[in-house]
């Protein structure tokens, strides 16, 4: 049980690895963006894991009920981070669309080759 309390952190570590791998190793630009999404989602998981209190409930105060509430702060931070994530993805996709129109490919190694030839 003691170690199970760390399971979330290990999943965070492995998700980080999977996403990061896609970002560095995949030449396809949309794949890179998807990897970036996984990479960021891993960080969301890290923060949200912190907010949980044993026996607690979501920090929406129920008047008259004596309850333990989980921590609101990491949730606020991750709300912001999710927004930042979708904004980055949207901008990245727009750049990828323009790259495809200009190069006819969305593979990074292929665009580099074209630039070198030019």
């Amino acid at each position, binding site marked *: 049980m003691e170690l199970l309390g760390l399971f979330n952190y290990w999943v965070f570590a492995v998700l*980080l690895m999977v996403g*990061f791998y896609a*970002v560095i190793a995949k030449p396809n*630009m949309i794949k*890179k963006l998807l990897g*970036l999404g996984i*990479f*960021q989602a891993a*960080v969301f998981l*890290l*923060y949200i894991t*912190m907010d949980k209190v044993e026996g607690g409930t979501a920090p929406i105060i129920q008047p008259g009920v004596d309850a333990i509430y989980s921590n609101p*702060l*990491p949730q606020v*931070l991750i709300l*912001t*981070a999710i927004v*930042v994530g979708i*904004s*980055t993805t949207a*901008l*990245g996709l727009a*750049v*990828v669309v*323009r*790259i495809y129109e*200009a*190069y006819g490919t969305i593979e*990074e190694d292929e*665009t*580099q080759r074209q*630039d070198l030839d030019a």
Partner: protein
Amino acid sequence: MSLAAQLPALQIVVPLLTAPVLVLLRGANLAWAAATAASVMAFVIAVALTLEVQSVGVIVYEMGAWPAPFGIELRIDGLNALVLLVITGASALTLLCGRASLAGEIDPDRLALFYAAWLIALAGLAGIAVTGDAFNVFVFMEISSLATYIIIAAGPNRQALTATFKYLIMGTVGATFYLIGVGLVYMMTGTLNFADMEARIGEVTDQRPILVAAGFITVGLALKAAVFPLHVWLPNAYTHAPHIVTAFIAACSTKVAIYVLLRFDFVVFQGNLTGHAFQFASFLAPLALLGILIGSAVAMFEGHLKRLLAYSSVAQVGYILLGASFASKAGITAGVVHMFNHALAKGALFLAVAALAMRLSGLRLADIAGAGRTMPWTAAALALAGASLVGIPGTAGFISKWLLLSAALEQGPLGIVAVVVIVLSSLAAVIYMWRVIERLYFGTPAGNALSASEPPWMLVAGVWVAALANVYFGLMPGLPVGLSEAAAEELLRHLP
């Protein structure tokens, strides 16, 4: 509350809220005027804040009047006052004189959006500089990054798009690394405020997460600051961005990341982690030295003017970090002064490049041959700023190199290596700047250079203001050196 007390908030709010107004406005001229006015106002506020810091010391402003660590506070001391001056000054000057150049490179229908993105980038960079909250740094880092991607992607060639994409991926990875680090520190201390973190981190007994956090934050910010070998996004981004944009971001965007790196490492980590000062130095000093050598070496053999200057920037980032990695008063002072002086030199150089580009067909060294005769004013300013980059006595560059050398000499054996590297790279700088100047004045003019005339007087004036600033701060280095010394003392106060 008086207007003076609101200045720290206004520093951010003025550019940040002018940007949405620009989205509403149509018309490129109006957008330019509004953006320039906001930038100039931001610069004026930064000057006022600097004067206030010089007289009263640290300024604290609580957002929403919530006390830290529950709310977010802005905290301005000598270090970020200097950074603010650089950011807002660069933006105001480049916008004032860059209108014609930008109008030539960007579709007029989209200029209003471009200026909005520019202002957001400015507000984001300034926001990073003034805040005292670790997560707030992340938010403003993303604001400035997203906006910077847009203004780089506005470049005329298709390579601007691939450069933007590479920067976007690496920048986001860097920011996410920073976020992981902040998360780990928050997990162990329960706070996001720098000052509160410093107070509480000493009580943390389990140090592994903190150590890992220090690693993530340092690597993440090093990515943003283009520290060698994480600089690969920089040369293409600088080369293919619109010329005026290059002048703006070369002057400030990497500097802000270095600023956060210094603040986080000195204020939060070094005083409380045993041996962290050593780890910091032994991680950064070799990278700084390698960056200086390799950046200078590549610049020597580069044939494209903007790319040459971009690689020189990689080397200059190395200088700044080298000074900081000494973790001594002289070292930090030298690093911070170099941050300021390099912004002056590179800003002036890239503005001069923008001026050349308005009249010439290309920016390869072959294309600029002979332009010294047809565009004498621009070429002379470029030569002057180049002298500052090399570090000729009487220019700003000399001051910081001199400070850096004397700081290195205090360091014993490692210092000797540093001195050798600095001297070598200065020689390299002489060579690469000489290649440029030789082509400008003694090359045989070809193509457009034959008939080129001076660009619009606003741009020439802007280039000269920047170039003369190099001379002014070379002869009277009181302001940057004074603020840097205050900054160094402030940072070192946190060491045990």
